[in-house]
């Protein structure tokens, strides 16, 4: 026992000597990554005045890589190729000219099979997916879930009614994003409900699209809705059309439609950017009932001030479940709500731990979030 203690003592003295005294410069492969980064670390005496780190290029000539700010002791060299050896050297100038130092180090990049810092990320993915799938299955087995009122959606019927009364069309803009954007897809499932009702009321529905793939999908969705309503004779393909890929060209075209066709109800649902206010203000000037919805938080204020009803963030994704009362969608919504509870609990626990000075939870999550 005593011997072990002695050895430990000597070891610790040695390491502390190393740490305090001798300057140190190391390079090592970043673990658990795709082999694209090397971590450089250094420890230098306090008398060092200026520092520069250099890296050998393909001709073995050292080029400046990085000049650390005062107090920095590490650097991650990124965007490297895997399975390659990289050489570095550290050049330090002391306050007196004779005091300069030159240290070199090298390391090999290596590809791994798992990103360890993504563990929290994978766990969250599994928990959330499991919850959503669980509730979907429960709903399919016949369990009923409650959904609170979403005022923006109760107006939909009213809007279609108004359009029918006036004999004017309905305008539906599925956002300005590509089909791959989930907001566009959510918008299309709302369109499917809306087109079904419009078919029932025998009211025309106009859908301008910014991208060809959105056009294809929108046509499928509306045609299917008319078919379901038993009105496939009334389906008019040319009412779902493409204008242009250009953001403002698309907006200019829609503005023209709004002032000339004067739709009685406008729906702007999906991903919107700067054009939100242009569309909503133009629509307001014709006196249409306007319903908008987007998850792009920075555009919400503009819809809120110019539209009659606005679906805020998640409400856009909840809309389709709310309108259709389809068991699978309602179940999925219940799963999202489980996620919200989890988030609230995590935040409360996290804040409590932080106040207590314990921060492993935050660090664990941060690793996944960065």
């Amino acid at each position, binding site marked *: 026992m005593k011997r072990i203690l002695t050895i430990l003592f000597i070891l610790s003295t040695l390491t502390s000597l190393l740490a305090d005294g001798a300057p140190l410069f190391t390079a090592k492969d970043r673990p658990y990554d795709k082999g694209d980064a090397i971590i450089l670390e250094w420890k230098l005496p306090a008398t060092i005045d200026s520092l520069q780190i250099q890296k050998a290029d393909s001709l073995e000539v050292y080029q400046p890589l990085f000049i650390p700010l005062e107090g920095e002791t590490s650097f991650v060299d990124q965007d490297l190729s895997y399975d390659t050896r990289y050489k570095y050297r550290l050049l330090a100038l002391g306050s007196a000219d004779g005091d300069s130092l030159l240290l070199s180090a090298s390391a090999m990049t290596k590809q791994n099979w798992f990103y360890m810092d993504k563990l929290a*990320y994978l766990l969250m993915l599994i928990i959330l997916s499991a919850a959503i799938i669980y509730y979907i299955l429960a709903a399919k087995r016949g369990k009923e*879930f*409650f*959904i*609170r009122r*979403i005022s923006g959606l109760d107006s939909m019927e009213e809007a279609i009614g108004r359009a029918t009364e006036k004999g004017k069309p309905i305008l539906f803009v599925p956002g300005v994003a590509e*089909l*791959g*954007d*989930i907001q566009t*897809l959510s918008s299309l499932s709302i369109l499917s409900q809306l087109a079904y009702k419009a078919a029932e009321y025998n009211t025309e529905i106009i859908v301008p699209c910014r991208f*060809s*793939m959105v056009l*294809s*999908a929108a046509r499928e969705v509306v045609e299917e809705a008319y078919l379901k309503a038993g009105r496939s004779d009334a389906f008019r393909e040319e009412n779902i059309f493409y*204008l*242009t*890929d*250009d953001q*403002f*060209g698309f907006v*200019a*075209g829609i*503005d*023209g439609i709004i*002032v*000339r066709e004067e739709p009685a109800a406008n729906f702007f649902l999906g991903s919107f950017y700067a054009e939100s206010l242009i569309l909503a203000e133009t629509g307001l000037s014709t006196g249409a009932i306007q319903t908008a919805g987007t998850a792009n*938080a*920075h555009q*919400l*204020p*503009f819809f*809120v001030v110019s539209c009659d009803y606005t679906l*805020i*963030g*998640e*409400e856009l994704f*909840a809309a389709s479940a709310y309108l259709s009362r389809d068991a699978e969608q309602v179940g999925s*919504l*219940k799963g*999202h*709500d489980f996620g*919200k*509870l989890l*988030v*609230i609990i*995590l*935040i409360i626990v*996290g*804040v409590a731990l*932080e*106040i207590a*000075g314990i*921060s492993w939870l*935050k660090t664990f*999550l*941060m690793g*996944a*979030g*960065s």
Partner: protein
Amino acid sequence: MPEIMNTVGIWLGAFFTFAIFSFLYKDNPFYKLAEQIFVGLSAGYGLIYIIYAALIPNLFHKLATDFSGNLILLIPFVLGLMMITRMVPKFQWMSRYPLSIVIGTSAAISLLRFLKSDLIAQVAATMINPFETKVPSEIVGKLMIIIGTICGVYFFYFSKKQEGIAKIPSKIGVYFLMVSFGATFGYTVMARISLLIGRLEFLLKDWLHIIK
């Protein structure tokens, strides 16, 4: 000659600028003309651009110079052609294959990206110790972040009636949303005015040479 054509170009730009501005008064022939030219030009621009910037360098050039080395590119090539089958009703079903691959992939990418940066990162960023500093305004601010985030998330809780005591956090959440909407609106004013300044600068400087 290029100088004259440059001037012609500026006059053209000025004409289109006025044509679009005229929409603010009301819809009129100038706006209708500018709008339709805009749609036509930009659609044509998109076609040419995607041919020169995506199809030629990423596909045709690679296949033409090294066909056997780029065999894998035949997959997107065929998928792209399948997209076009939509124009022929009989083969319309073929376009569903590329469509479903694109959507399946995009859905997975969105799922991962939003889980990471909008869920986990935001939750972690909210785990703060409000009493770390001694500055009162910062303590209040940090408490606001914690309470506002929790109540805001609760506002979006759909599967429970928000009545009685359960209504309070939801109301607080709405108050935070309103403050945020007002602030975002106010913050955006400067950027929007800059756009107009840019257009007027074009008219006054490049076109009329009134200001330098």
